[in-house]
């Protein structure tokens, strides 16, 4: 009897963990990021997540979060540097604005220093942004990075802490 009773606190903790786990969400805080089949940069992408997308956390491993993206019904891995525990409200209403003023766990997408402010700044300063736009478009595809790593006999970025 005593031993059985000892199991009750364990049951209590397990239930709490499961229920809280269900509500454990992360938001994508970068423009876009791939959700991958395995925890690694060179892994194949299952789908692309966009800024503000919410995923339900299923697990974590060495800097990566395994999550479920309900909107597309996909489960996969996303790097932690692309995620935040904050809620990012993509089309904020008045109540969201009020919430974000007092709650640092709420962020408003597209507000504050944004495209509109940049356009105004650009106009006032008379600075040309075309070079920046061109540089920004110069992302290197992941297969080229993988080939560069292989040819230079560099370490596997997905091989864990070195």
């Amino acid at each position, binding site marked *: 009897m005593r031993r059985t009773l000892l199991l009750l606190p364990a049951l209590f903790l397990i239930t709490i963990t499961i229920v*809280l786990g269900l509500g454990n969400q992360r938001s994508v805080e970068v423009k876009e990021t791939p959700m991958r089949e395995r925890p690694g940069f060179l892994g194949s992408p299952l789908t692309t997540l966009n800024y503000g997308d919410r995923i339900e956390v299923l697990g974590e491993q060495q800097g990566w979060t395994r999550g479920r993206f309900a909107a597309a019904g996909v489960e996969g891995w996303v790097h932690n540097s692309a995620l935040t525990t904050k809620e990012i409200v993509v089309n904020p209403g008045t109540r969201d604005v009020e919430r974000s003023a007092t709650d640092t*766990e709420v962020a408003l997408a597209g507000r*504050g220093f944004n495209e509109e402010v940049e356009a105004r700044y650009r106009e006032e300063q008379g600075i040309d942004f075309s070079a920046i736009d061109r*540089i920004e478009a*110069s992302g290197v595809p992941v297969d080229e990075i993988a080939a*560069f790593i292989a040819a230079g006999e560099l370490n596997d*970025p997905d091989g864990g802490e070195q």
Partner: protein
Amino acid sequence: MSRNRYRDRPGYRAVIIGAAIAVMVMALVLACAGLGDVADFGTAVASQTGVISEQQADSVRRSARAVERSAEDITPEQEYYIGRSVGAVITDRYELYEDEEANRYINTLGQTLALFSRRPETFGGYRFQILDSDEINAFATPSGIVFVTRGLLNLASSEDGVASILAHEIGHIEYQHGLQAIRTSRITAALTSVAITGTQFATSEDLAELTATFEDSIDDITQTLINSGYSRSAEREADRAAVRIMKRAGYDPAGLIAVLEEMDRRLDPRGLDFAATHPAPDSRISDIRDEIDGYSHTARATDAREERYRAALGRL
């Protein structure tokens, strides 16, 4: 024996099951109470858009001030817009080095190194661009665009050396040193303004006011990058990050020392470039030696690295 006595009692199983259910219900209630905020999120998202009243604005202003605001509260999205404009100021002052092969090499090397950093993903990603200048200089803008001059790249004589330069700049982005150059008063002003005009700019004055704060923030960063430089501790942090990134990637961290030794030989102490904005190379070298002490690098595939380094940057 005594255990059996309990088990034999009628109703024992019912008591245990009852207790288990009670415990689970208790846990459920407690856990759901913690989820209250999450439930609120859903209803709040559905609320109407519009500009808030003056009275609401006042209350928001008060509460926003009550919340501590710092560089960490700048969202990656806003960091990205700050970085773009800092970058635009730099491309306005410096000529870009227009050699596709050289830039492609730097960009591929830099984006590879970023994967080994503590912050592999930023809002818009990492980009690396060579500036057509003999000056010994580099600028890491918030969120990931990195500029390096021909003059600085020429201090390196191998891919490992170039990697050390780029890894140091990635370190500045990782630690958000650029954002930390913005005066706290501006961050508070900007984030309070976001709080008030969050749904849309009420008037063109609101936009003008926020743009003025934006301009001041860009000035804070470009002044630091171009004229005053980061603090000595920020540079040490970036050097340590460079060593860590290089070790993880499989580059020889001593490449950074080789570059700094060359810099020490060539830097004009009265110069307006790295001489003005960075601690003296020799003082950085001794710190880095401590950092890589005990690390034995196994040189691999130096031929392949050497070959592509020469092919891409040989004309620099």
